[in-house]
């Protein structure tokens, strides 16, 4: 405990590349980049499946595979491939070592929860509402953006919440593969038998995850339309965990 406070209050640990601010930025950069790329794929596919009801089986299977295949396994399997491809495709082997396997594993992990939340959120919108919107003369695009999307937004944010938490956890593991981020303090703390560094790493990583979770659950609640909030004020369901 004292060692941890000593580590956290040492000014040397708040500057340069190995300092806490830079590690936090590294952690957030790769995490947000992965979630941004994943959402481009997942939202487009999710809108399509949710609005048209086609390709549902693909969505379910993707989600199941994503759950059964742990990010760590994906990351380590990609490592030899990305190192091997570096000379072929002409990128820096350092990127193949420190960035690509971790980033691609995150992408693989972040697509399923956002995709499932998007199409499930759009599908749970009352059929009567979409039918009457169509009757009022709204185009398919208008129905999607003005009716289905607002009503599904809270569920979609729930998917982002799951994805972001898993990506933050994956970035932590990425430190074991020479990646940056706050996980470095845990991996290096174990290697150097420096309990102060180890505990500081645990505290920072857990704090980042919990902070993200609190922020997104607040956003989720804010985005729920008031009428829906009143109608569904009950305990969490399994759908939220899926």
């Amino acid at each position: 405990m004292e060692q941890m406070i000593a580590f956290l209050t040492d000014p040397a640990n708040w500057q340069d590349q190995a300092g806490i601010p830079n590690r936090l930025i590294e952690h957030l950069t790769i995490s947000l980049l992965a979630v941004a790329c994943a959402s481009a794929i997942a939202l487009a596919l999710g809108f399509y499946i949710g609005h048209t009801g086609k390709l549902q089986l693909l969505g379910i299977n993707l989600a199941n595979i994503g759950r059964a295949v742990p990010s760590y396994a994906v990351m380590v399997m990609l490592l030899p491939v990305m190192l091997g491809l570096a000379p072929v495709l002409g990128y820096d082997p350092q990127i193949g070592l420190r960035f690509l396997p971790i980033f691609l594993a995150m992408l693989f992990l972040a697509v399923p929860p956002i995709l499932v939340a998007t199409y499930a959120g759009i599908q749970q919108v009352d059929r009567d509402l979409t039918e009457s919107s169509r009757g009022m003369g709204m185009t398919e695009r208008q129905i999607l953006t003005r009716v289905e999307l607002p009503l599904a937004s809270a569920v979609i944010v729930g998917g982002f919440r799951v994805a972001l938490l898993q990506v933050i956890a994956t970035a932590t593991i990425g430190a074991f593969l020479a990646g940056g981020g706050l996980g470095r303090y845990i991996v290096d703390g174990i290697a150097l038998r420096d309990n102060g560094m180890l505990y500081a790493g645990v505290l920072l990583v857990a704090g980042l995850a919990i902070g993200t979770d609190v922020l997104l659950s607040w956003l989720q609640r804010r985005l729920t339309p008031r009428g829906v909030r009143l109608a569904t004020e009950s305990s969490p369901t399994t759908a939220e965990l899926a």
Partner: protein
Amino acid sequence: MIEIRWDWILNHLDDVVDKTWQHLILLLIPMVVGFAIAFALAILAMRRPGTVGPVTAVTGLLYTIPSLAAFAVLIPITGLTLMTAIIPLTTYTLLILYVNTVAGLRSVPPEVNEAADAMGYTHTSRLLRVQLPLAVPLIMAGVRVAAVTTIGLVTVSAIIGGQLFGGLGQFITEGLQTDFDTKIYLGAMGSVVLAFLVDGALVTLQRWLTPWARARSEVP
């Protein structure tokens, strides 16, 4: 580019069996302990609905902590023993098992409960003989997700487990350290295959536990 040495795997089958066995032990102990805790808390939730909020919040908090941090936090306390892996693996199962068990018990239609009351069931026997069997599909859905998640997390625990624990994940760590792709792929693919096999076994178990669902689906 990637060379898998099948001969190496064939020559080390005893090692593969040992590590698979340990993987299963590290799955089984946390699942059993986690289920016992989650189940007790779910029974409590049926008697005192006010406990659901706080219990969900605490188990949710435990679930939110990234896995590597959860494994690392115990090293200075429990040292490099199996407990360092078992404790976080157990806490990770709680949220999923608890939420699904509560949802399952609550999914029983009120008229079924009233019929049981009218037939003279006591509160406890109604819970065990009416509500619990009807909750099995949702409980098993939770067990499947928790089991598959735990298998993945055992693999991650190898990062701190050294020579001692981590199941098939130990192949990954050793493969990374010695730059031996065969071991990396053996560990990674092994844990994925194990997850699918265990999930399949749990589906079979669920069919066996709910014979009425099968009977219903077979009737045209």
